[in-house]
């Protein structure tokens, strides 16, 4: 008989009961799915990006289905940090899972404002910095420039005690370089990847499928891109990496852990299956039990790269 595998992992000082988090922007403020999904089955939840003021978002249409994925151009429509603290935190404080709040903004001062307001707020376990939303022009491309990314992180590092997770965009030449710079600036972890910039056209009308013309691609279609990003980041940094991109099953989560992730976030899958996160955690546990893996920690970064002499000769 196998014993229950140990699913706990650590993101810095924060211990999670399992490595499965709900991804920002796909889980609202917790209460929407909390009506019919047991949130304590998650290792944690990451709430929708907050800006200082309520934000109207982009013109519709804001989503389009593509092959094994979807495009979105929501444009950070959110209630603003004050309404979040007033209206959403009383519920979230009583949820029995780690609470990670995603922080956004235009200029640095807006990130600073949101971070300061949240740091004064009891019940938050960590902040994830949205340095990389592809749907907002002006300012939110911090994670495409290593120097600006580091400046943002070190500024926020100096004003909060909360663990900081830098969420990175894949829309760069070298995501590992950005990860290195935010680690040096004091990030406790990095999460990757945000959506890939994408576009779809209605050839009948010759119009873009999204009101904002381009948007971000998510879902199973981007999983290999995300696994590669996690692998490359994990080989360059020593802080935990949180893998995001197309995870729909426990096996997908194992793949990310083996590639170097300490935890994962489930996003688009939740739209399809509201219990996708708990289901990933459960099937991850089942996989570990069957595979005689006693702790998921032993999976992290356990990738076996064949040495060149073992590899078959391949012309490329």
């Amino acid at each position, binding site marked *: 008989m196998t014993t229950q595998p140990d699913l706990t992992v650590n993101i810095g000082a924060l211990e999670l009961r399992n490595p499965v988090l709900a991804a920002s922007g796909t889980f609202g403020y917790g209460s929407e799915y909390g009506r019919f999904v047991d949130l304590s089955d998650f290792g944690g939840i990451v709430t929708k990006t907050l800006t200082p003021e309520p934000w109207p978002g*982009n013109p519709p249409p804001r989503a389009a*289905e593509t092959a094994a994925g979807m495009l979105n151009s929501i444009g950070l429509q959110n209630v603003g940090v004050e309404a979040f603290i007033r209206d959403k935190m009383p519920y979230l404080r009583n949820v029995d899972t780690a609470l990670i709040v995603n922080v956004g903004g235009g200029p640095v001062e807006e990130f600073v404002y949101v971070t300061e307001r949240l740091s004064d707020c009891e019940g938050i376990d960590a902040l994830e910095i949205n340095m990389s939303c592809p749907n907002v022009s002006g300012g939110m491309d911090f994670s495409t420039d290593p120097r600006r990314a580091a400046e943002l992180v070190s500024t926020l590092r100096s004003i909060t005690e909360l663990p900081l997770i830098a969420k990175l965009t894949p829309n760069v030449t070298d995501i590992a370089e950005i990860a290195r710079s935010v680690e040096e600036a004091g990030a406790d972890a990095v999460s990757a990847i945000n959506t890939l910039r994408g576009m779809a056209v209605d050839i009948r009308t010759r119009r873009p499928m999204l009101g904002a013309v381009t948007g971000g691609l998510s879902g199973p279609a981007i999983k290999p891109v995300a696994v590669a990003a996690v692998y490359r980041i994990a080989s360059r940094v020593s802080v935990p990496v949180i893998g995001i991109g197309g995870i*729909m099953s426990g096996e997908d989560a194992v793949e990310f852990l083996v590639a170097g992730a300490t935890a994962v976030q489930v996003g688009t899958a939740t*739209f*399809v299956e509201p219990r996708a996160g708990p289901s990933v955690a459960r099937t991850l546990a089942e996989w570990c039990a069957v595979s005689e893996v006693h702790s998921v920690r032993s999976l992290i970064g356990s990738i076996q790269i064949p040495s060149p002499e073992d590899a078959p000769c391949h012309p490329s």
Partner: protein
Amino acid sequence: MSTIPICQYDAEILANREIGPGLYWIDLLAPEITRHALPGHFVHLIASDVSEDSSRQTWLRHTPLLRRPFSIAERDPERGVFGLIYRIVGGGTEILATRRHGEKVDVLGPLGRTFEPVRPGRPVVMVAGGVGVAPFLSLVQETARDRRARAADMTILFGAATAGLLSSEEKFREYGVDVRLATDDGTTGHHGLVTDLLEQELASSPRRCAYLYACGPTPMMRRCQEIAREAGIDGQVSLEGIMPCGVGVCMACVVACAAPGLAPGAAPGTAQGAAPGERSSSRRYERVCVAGPVFDMQEVVL
């Protein structure tokens, strides 16, 4: 937010049959959803077979990926069965049409905001375009169940491309609803737009048009808004949208609404061609899945 519980069901297909060219009726066994459903509610379903005994990878089972929203067209609380109407318009509905009696469909519901009930002594007109007829079947059925209101106080103006797509009109006649038809190709009823019928009805029997409901293609609903505004009639529209989550989370299925202070029906200044992320106080977007799909007639900018 509504207090009606959201249920997720592996609903058994009791019937899935073609009722017109490319037009289908599906009956699903889901007692909890059926019990709580009201006219205007919708369900969010996965068209493909996602049962876990499949050896295919999760993502492959979930192709196409997203759920599809459908208005509840009819319900039988005793049997725990509700019906939906759909037309094959893409990959999801094409797969749904291949699903057989006895198979299971993953359904989430009932979702959304519902219609104002038909009030005794306030005759209503329903304007339906194509599969937009679905929620009105539900409205008529509920009205007939209500001993105070009468289905005879209801008129439906039902339009579609061709006569074969109007097959559900029979159900309205059975309830004693006044039925007028329109087709684009003239195969039955008025040869032209269903909104022409609305203008005729307002001119000939204004007393039978005290309240208006509309559901169908956007140009049809826009014209209904204009006609209702000119005639000074209140009403509601039922919308659809590209709807990834269906429960108010993803913020994708939004519709522009007149901001407070703007004239009813006035376009939000920046709804068209606004720079992504631009701040604007004249713009307000509401989620079709939780603020709708039923909205007050003049509230939305179509």
